[in-house]
C-alpha cells in the first residue's frame, strides 16, 4: 500500500510536470489568494501592534481631558462635536489646578496647546508645530533629550523664551551645527534652544513628534495671545484606580462645565476603539482576499475537470492495465492538492517578500497564524475542489474511456 501510494504520488507529480505552463496558470489563483490574505493581514496586524506600542510609550496610566463631547451620543468618535469642541473650547488653566487638587488619585496634570508656526535659523525657515506646555510634559510623555535638556520649572514659570526642538526640526535647521544655546525665531520672536529631543520615529500619515518645538505654556499664551488649552493630560497615581479617578475628575469639572463641554477618558479607551476598528478592517480585507482564494480553488477544479476529460483515454488505459478506481481517485486528488499547496507556498513566499518591501515605510508583520490559516485553507480548497474531478475520473468505465475520441 505504501509503495502504491508513493507511486500514485509520483504519477500525479509527473502529470503536473508534463503540463508546467498550465499548472502554473492554475496555481495563479491560489498564489494571489494566499499572498493577498497574508499580506493584508500583515498590514492590519502591523498597524495594530504599532499603534499599541505608540500608546504604551506614552505611559499607561495617563487620563486625557478633551474639550467637548468627544465620544458623541453613539459612543464613537463624533466629527461634528469635535469641531464644535475646538471652536467652543471651554477648558482653561484653572481646570488643571482643580484636577491636581484631587490628591488621592492625581499625581500631576499638564495642559498643552498646539499652534502652527514657522521656525527659522540663519535664513533656513520651516513650517512647524509649536507645543506650549509645562515643564512636566517631559516626565508625562517620556520625552528624552538627545542634547541639552528640557526647559526647567523656573524657565516655565518665568515665561522665558526657551525652546526644545524635535529631532528632525533640529536636523533641518542646524544640520551638523550644535543647536544648544543658539537663537532661533518662531515667527518674529527670538527663542534660545536649550535641548533637542531624542528621535521618536515616524508616526506614518500624521505629524511626528520629531517635527514639534516645545516652549513653556504661558510663553506660548503671550506669543500667540491665546489662553486656549487643547488638551489636559493627567497622571494617575494608581493604575488600578483609573476608572475611579476618571469619575473624580468628571465630578470636579462638572462643577463649572456642562457634561457635553468636556470628555475624560483613558488611553485604553482610545486604543480599544482604534484596535477594534483596525480588527474589523483587517478581517474585512482578509475576507475579501479569501474570496480570491475560493476563486482560485474553483479555478483548480475547472482545470482538473478539463484534465480528466482530456485524459479520458489515459485513465481508460491505466484501468485496463490494472489501476484500481481508488488509485485513480487518489492520483487526481493528489494532483489538485499538489497544485494548491504549491500555489500556497509560492503565495506565502510572495507575501513574505511583499511584507519585507512594505517594512521600509510601513510596520507590516507577517503572523504565524495568518500563514497557517492561508496555507491550510489553500490545501483544503485544493482537496475539496479536487474531489469532484477525481471521482469523475475514478468512475469512468475502462471501455468507454478507451473508446473516447
Amino acid at each position, binding site marked *: 500500500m505504501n509503495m502504491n501510494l508513493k507511486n500514485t504520488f509520483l504519477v500525479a507529480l509527473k502529470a503536473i510536470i508534463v503540463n508546467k505552463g498550465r499548472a502554473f496558470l492554475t496555481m495563479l489563483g491560489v498564489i494571489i489568494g494566499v499572498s493577498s490574505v497574508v499580506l493584508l493581514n500583515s498590514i492590519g496586524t502591523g498597524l495594530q501592534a504599532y499603534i499599541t506600542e505608540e500608546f504604551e510609550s506614552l505611559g499607561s496610566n495617563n487620563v486625557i481631558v478633551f474639550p467637548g463631547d468627544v465620544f458623541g451620543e453613539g459612543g464613537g468618535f463624533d466629527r461634528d462635536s469635535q469641531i464644535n469642541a475646538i471652536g467652543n473650547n471651554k477648558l482653561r488653566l484653572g481646570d488643571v489646578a482643580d484636577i491636581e487638587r484631587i490628591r488621592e488619585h492625581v499625581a500631576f496634570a499638564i495642559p498643552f496647546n498646539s499652534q502652527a508656526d514657522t521656525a527659522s535659523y540663519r535664513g533656513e525657515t520651516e513650517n512647524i508645530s509649536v507645543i506650549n506646555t509645562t515643564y512636566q510634559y517631559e516626565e508625562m510623555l517620556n520625552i528624552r533629550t538627545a542634547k541639552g535638556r528640557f526647559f526647567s520649572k523656573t524657565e516655565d514659570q518665568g515665561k522665558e523664551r526657551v525652546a526644545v526642538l524635535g529631532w528632525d526640526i533640529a536636523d533641518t535647521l542646524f544640520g551638523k551645527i550644535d543647536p544648544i544655546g543658539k537663537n532661533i525665531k518662531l515667527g518674529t520672536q527670538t527663542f534660545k534652544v536649550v535641548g533637542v529631543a531624542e528621535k521618536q520615529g515616524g508616526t506614518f500619515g500624521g505629524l511626528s513628534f520629531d517635527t514639534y518645538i516645545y516652549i513653556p505654556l504661558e510663553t506660548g499664551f503671550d506669543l500667540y495671545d491665546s489662553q486656549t488649552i487643547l488638551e489636559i493630560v493627567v497622571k494617575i497615581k494608581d493604575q488600578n484606580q483609573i476608572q475611579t479617578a476618571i469619575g473624580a475628575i468628571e465630578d470636579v469639572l462638572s462643577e463649572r462645565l456642562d457634561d457635553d463641554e468636556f470628555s475624560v477618558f483613558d488611553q485604553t479607551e482610545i486604543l480599544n476603539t482604534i484596535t477594534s476598528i483596525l480588527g474589523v478592517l483587517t478581517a474585512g480585507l482578509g475576507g475579501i482576499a479569501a474570496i480570491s482564494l475560493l476563486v482560485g480553488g474553483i479555478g483548480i477544479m475547472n482545470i482538473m475537470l478539463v484534465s480528466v476529460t482530456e485524459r479520458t*483515454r489515459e485513465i481508460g488505459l491505466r484501468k485496463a*492495465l490494472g489501476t484500481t*478506481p481508488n488509485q485513480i481517485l487518489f492520483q487526481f486528488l493528489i494532483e489538485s492538492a499538489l497544485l494548491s499547496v504549491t500555489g500556497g507556498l509560492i503565495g506565502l513566499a510572495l507575501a513574505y517578500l511583499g511584507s519585507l518591501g512594505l517594512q521600509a515605510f510601513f510596520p507590516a508583520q507577517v503572523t504565524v497564524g495568518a500563514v497557517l490559516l492561508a496555507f491550510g485553507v489553500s490545501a483544503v480548497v485544493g482537496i475539496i475542489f479536487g474531489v469532484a474531478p477525481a471521482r469523475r475520473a475514478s468512475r469512468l468505465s475502462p471501455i468507454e474511456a478507451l473508446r473516447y475520441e
Partner: protein
Amino acid sequence: MPQSKRSKKSSSTKKIILELQNVSKVYEVGTQTIKALDGVSLRVREGDFLSVMGPSGSGKSTFLQVASILATPSSGHILINGKNTTKYNEVERAHLRNSEVGFVFQNYNLLAKTSALENVALPLVYAGIDEKTRLERAKVMLEKIGLGDRLHNTPSQLSGGQQQRVAIARALVNNPSIIFADEPTGNLDSKSGEEVRKILQQLSKEGRTIIMVTHEHDVADIAKQHISLIDGKIVDGKMKI
C-alpha cells in the same frame, strides 16, 4: 453449447488459460435489448494463438472486452488461469488484469509526453514493483522487440509501427498468461503491419498465448486457431495447419 473445437489431442493436455462458459452480454439501448454475445463457450490453452474474425457488429469487440475482464458478462462464467472471475469486484478484476492479461490496442494507447521506457514500465507501477526493477525490465522488453535505441523517445518521436511495438512490449512486461490484441495492425501501413505480424508470430513460437481480433484475413492467417463470430455466436471454429 460449447462451440470451440480442440481437435489436436496433443494440445488438449496443455493447461487451460482462458475458459468462457456459456457467456452472454446484453446491452439495453433505449427500449431495445441487444445481445452482443450469445452463449459463447470456449477454451484457450497455453500457447494457443486464436484469431477472432467477423463482420462489424458481430460482437468481436464485446468478446474481447468480456474475455479480457475489462467488461463483465451478463451471464455465464469466465475463468482465467483456473480462477473464476464471476464474483470478482472491480478492484479484484483490476489486479487480475494487471497480473494475467496484456493488451495491445489498435491505436496503441501510449501515454503522450512519456518515454517509451516509462510507457512499457507502466503496468509494473500498478504491480507495486520498485522503479529500478521496473525500468530494467522495460529496457529488456524494448530491446527484445528491437527498440533498444529508442528507450527515451516519446510516442510523438516514434513511427506508428514503433509505437505499436512499444505497446506490445508493454503488454509483455508483466509476463501475463494471455495477450489480447485488438486489430493490432489496423492503423499501420503494410510494412509496419508486417513487422508487427512477425513479432506476434515470434511471441507465439515462444509459447505465448494470444487472442487477436481482426477483420483482415492475411493478419488472421498468422494465428494457429480461428473462430468467427456472427450475431454474438461462434459460427466457425476451425484449426489451421
